[in-house]
């Protein structure tokens, strides 16, 4: 029975691998389709010809706010423009196509992976932190995407995540009670947008929304 088992896995693996390649090529086609518009809209400094320098600087990006000896090691990073609605829109497509949505859920509400809908990021919320979390993966379950995705796609994802994380912050901390929170997003089945916090409604406490 175990011999059968081995034979099975041997014949299955190439087919699975082929499927991954098919999915990947679809994704990369999507990515390539994005590239020209990215190049038109992005500052030349942020495109691939300077990526070696950018990558060198990214290596210096800290993932903590603790800095011994009072140093400030955070380098100045020139990222592609992240407040570009077109970049966020492309990022939303990539977020859904690459199955980011399967873990972080529609509008980044969180599930298998943490919420991206609020302003809190475990591994740092600066654009370069988010870039690195995607590219390198993170030990508690975030897969490594840097070997699969071209840089511009990752930066589009950063633009989208930055956009969806703009939850209203009425106060510094978070109060949870019978009367708080007071609002929720209009759910994703009713709005397809890279700015879901623009449309909110009353918090429904587990009941059916109106």
């Amino acid at each position: 029975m175990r011999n059968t088992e081995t034979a099975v896995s041997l014949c299955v693996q190439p087919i699975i691998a082929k499927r991954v390649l098919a999915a990947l090529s679809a994704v990369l086609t999507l990515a390539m389709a994005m590239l020209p518009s990215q190049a038109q809209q992005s500052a030349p400094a942020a495109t691939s010809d300077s990526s070696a320098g950018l990558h060198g600087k990214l290596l210096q990006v800290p993932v903590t706010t603790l800095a011994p000896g009072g140093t400030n090691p955070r380098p100045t990073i020139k990222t592609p423009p992240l407040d570009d609605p077109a970049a966020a829109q492309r990022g939303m497509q990539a977020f859904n196509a690459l199955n980011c949505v399967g873990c972080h859920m529609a509008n980044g509400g969180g599930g298998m992976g943490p919420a991206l809908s609020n302003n809190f990021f475990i591994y740092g919320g600066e654009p370069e932190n988010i870039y690195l979390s995607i590219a390198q993966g993170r030990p508690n379950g975030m897969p490594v995407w840097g070997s699969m995705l071209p840089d511009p796609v990752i930066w589009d994802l950063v633009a989208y995540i930055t956009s969806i994380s703009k939850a209203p912050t009425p106060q510094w901390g978070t109060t949870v009670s019978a009367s708080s929170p007071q609002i929720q997003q209009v759910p994703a089945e009713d709005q397809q947008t890279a700015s879901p916090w623009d449309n909110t409604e009353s918090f429904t406490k587990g009941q059916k929304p109106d």
Partner: protein
Amino acid sequence: MKDDRQWPMAAKNYANTRYSSLDQINAGNVGQLKLAWSFSVGPARGQEAAPLAVNGTVFVVAPYDGPNPNQVFALDAVTGDLKWSYAPKPNIAAKGVACCDVVNRGLAYDNGKIFLNTLDDYSVAIDANTGKELWHTKLGDINQGETVTMAPIVVKGKVLVGNSGGEMGVRGWLTAVDETSGKIAWRAYSTGPDSEVLIGDDFNPHYGWLKGKDLGVKSWPPDKWQIGGAGVWGWISYDPDLNLIYYGTANPGAWNHEARPGDNLWSSSLFARDPDTGMAKWAYAVGPHDLWDYDEINENILLDLPINNQTRKVLVHPGRNGFMYVIDRATGEVLSADPFDTVNTIKSIDLKTGRPVLNDELTPKLGKTVKDVCPASPGAKDWQPAAWSPRTKLLYVPHQHICMNFQTSEVGYIAGTPYVGATVDMFAGPGGHRGEFMAWDPVARKKVWSITENFPVWTGALVTAGDLAFYGTMDRWFKAVDAKTGQVLWQFRAPSGFVGQPTTFIGNDGVQYVAMMSGVGGWPGVVANAEIDPRVRNGALGFTGAMQDLPAQTVGGNSLLVFALPKTQGAATQPNQTNPGASNQGNAPTGQSNHAQ
């Protein structure tokens, strides 16, 4: 092991009744039940595990998080003294492919050994006396999206283990591991050719449409069976007389059904197999071409019931689809199937064919939102197992009462990432409550009594010869109710909400104990124990929508709670008033002092 002093497997016995003949604690005295001791297992994630008890030792396993994921603890049932602990070597990346909290549903005991399944796909044998590792065997691969969350069960020297990952495009399997050597004896896939599903000449399903060669391939678009889900993460029962094991398989992947035309066998199906060889005897597809993520991994409780003046060997399967199935366990014939909660997705079960008669108006179409679908994806009842009392002849069923809006989308398969293709938004069902604990008469085919709960009842049930039924609520109440009437006789406010499985046993002092893990989580509970935004209804595969007010009631927890009646006379376990230093041996209630957040 028919000795009711013990609780050797999560479901108590091979019939999966979760019934104990112990009656020291009964309807007359349960009002005095007190916390005897408690213990923190560490990670404050969903505590779905059943505490086992064998020869006066309690065995429990922690969720997969913190410095020692899936750590196992052995404690004295009377004193709570920690005898040993065992932590498997961790691979914390496994957390990234676990769909619905990093839970573990419990251990199994057999022949002096404790058996553990880890989230990162190992099966481990541990010496029950010493905690020493005897063997560990890798059964799956997290980079294929596979995890293991189910409690193992040991049948005739074989440890039976299945995989989770219906949301990750896994290919489901059940594997038998030799309990002595740790070597794989057989593996039965849920999809694919008969040779790998272990379907041979002996296979004889009751319904004609389930007969034919390689239906696990032919009922899928080309190759889709390889990523078709149908994991095995629920319960296994065993009938020694028929020499058959019974279990259900999970939903097909992706959730977007238009990606997989066909009956998608053998997803959302029940199997009867020979435990020696793994060969299938019969199968029944509860949900051919599932539309809604209705896994059918729920328990199959083996009973001999009088049906039409004849004693029938049946299995009772409280379906995720909201129907209570009574099935001839020798043949796989459905004898009855009746709705036990609000159901609008299925009109009825056709007993001639066994197929559900669907409400076609609700069939999802790509990009279109289908509204008010009942039950929602977790079904009218999920994994949380029911209990059966031979005294009251009633089934005690914990379940949920939620509906949803559902929208499918295109999805591509990338190994080790989710393969879902649906945006889901759940909410309370009609009436506004989200859970129920009910007593069901499977012969009369009707509900006898029920208790509605604000949140889904996500714990297992326990019923005893003291005519008490036990369950817990997600808003932190552990309850004992009169098994005949449903009257609440006792309740305990706990550190965190309940999603576990209550058990009962006798300690070495001859006293009956009741044990239960406190720590909210699981699919409905992650919104309260993990970084999930309650303001985004579609989170947690849509369960956030129905659970968004849970964080106002509880946060995650990690406490094993062990209850007993107060001692009436001086016993060795009484707190020593003259020597406070020895009082850690005591049974005085420790309240919530062990609860670390």
